């Protein structure tokens, strides 16, 4: 089955620094989603990427899907404590389900 591998597993940065989180698939992705989860809370939808080479931005967060549609990256510019949380990538599985990566835990120190 298709799996998503996220790296790094955890990341600690100083406020104001840029950072990148990666999500790699063993097979071609036909739709890649990025979510953010704060501990003990629900998931917040960030962005959806569908086309090879696609790039989307929301505030200081930019997500890209490579041309081969097997890798996506999430880049945060000038990180803030509000960016802290767990970032999850997911793809649409064969049925209705989303298949998630294991997540990247981001800590932003003030």
């Amino acid at each position, binding site marked *: 089955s298709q799996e998503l591998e996220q790296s790094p597993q955890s990341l600690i940065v100083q406020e104001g620094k840029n950072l990148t989180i990666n999500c790699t698939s063993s097979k071609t992705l036909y*739709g890649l*989603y990025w*979510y953010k989860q704060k501990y*003990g*809370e*629900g*998931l*917040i*939808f960030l962005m*959806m990427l569908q086309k090879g080479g696609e790039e989307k931005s929301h505030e200081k967060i930019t997500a890209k899907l490579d041309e081969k549609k097997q890798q996506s990256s999430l880049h945060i510019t000038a990180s803030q404590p509000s960016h802290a949380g767990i970032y*999850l990538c*997911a793809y*649409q*599985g064969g*049925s*209705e*389900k*989303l298949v*998630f*990566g*294991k*997540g990247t835990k981001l800590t932003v120190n003030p």
Partner: protein
Amino acid sequence: SQTIHQWPATLVQPVGSPLSLECTVEGTSNPNLYWYRQAAGRGLQLLFYSVGIGQISSEVPQNLSASRPQDRQFILSSKKLLLSDSGFYLCAWSSARNQPQHFGDGTRLSIL
């Protein structure tokens, strides 16, 4: 705008007791509805989904069941809880397949 509500936020239940978690969506019609579980140290696992009233699909065999008595209401139930049912339960909705799923705030279930 659309909103999704889950309750209760936390629940502590003894082994063998029944369970009923409720999820409602506002601001949309005929949504696809989903129940996920996030167990400690494990990823999110889809338990059930529904594309319409009375239509329930189960992704994994388990001790739980789901029902959709109304268009925007999704209920997760169990007749007898097991210790392994502990976890964080999330309800989600989407307008259609291949569209983003939007999640509720979750219910943390602890079984004693």
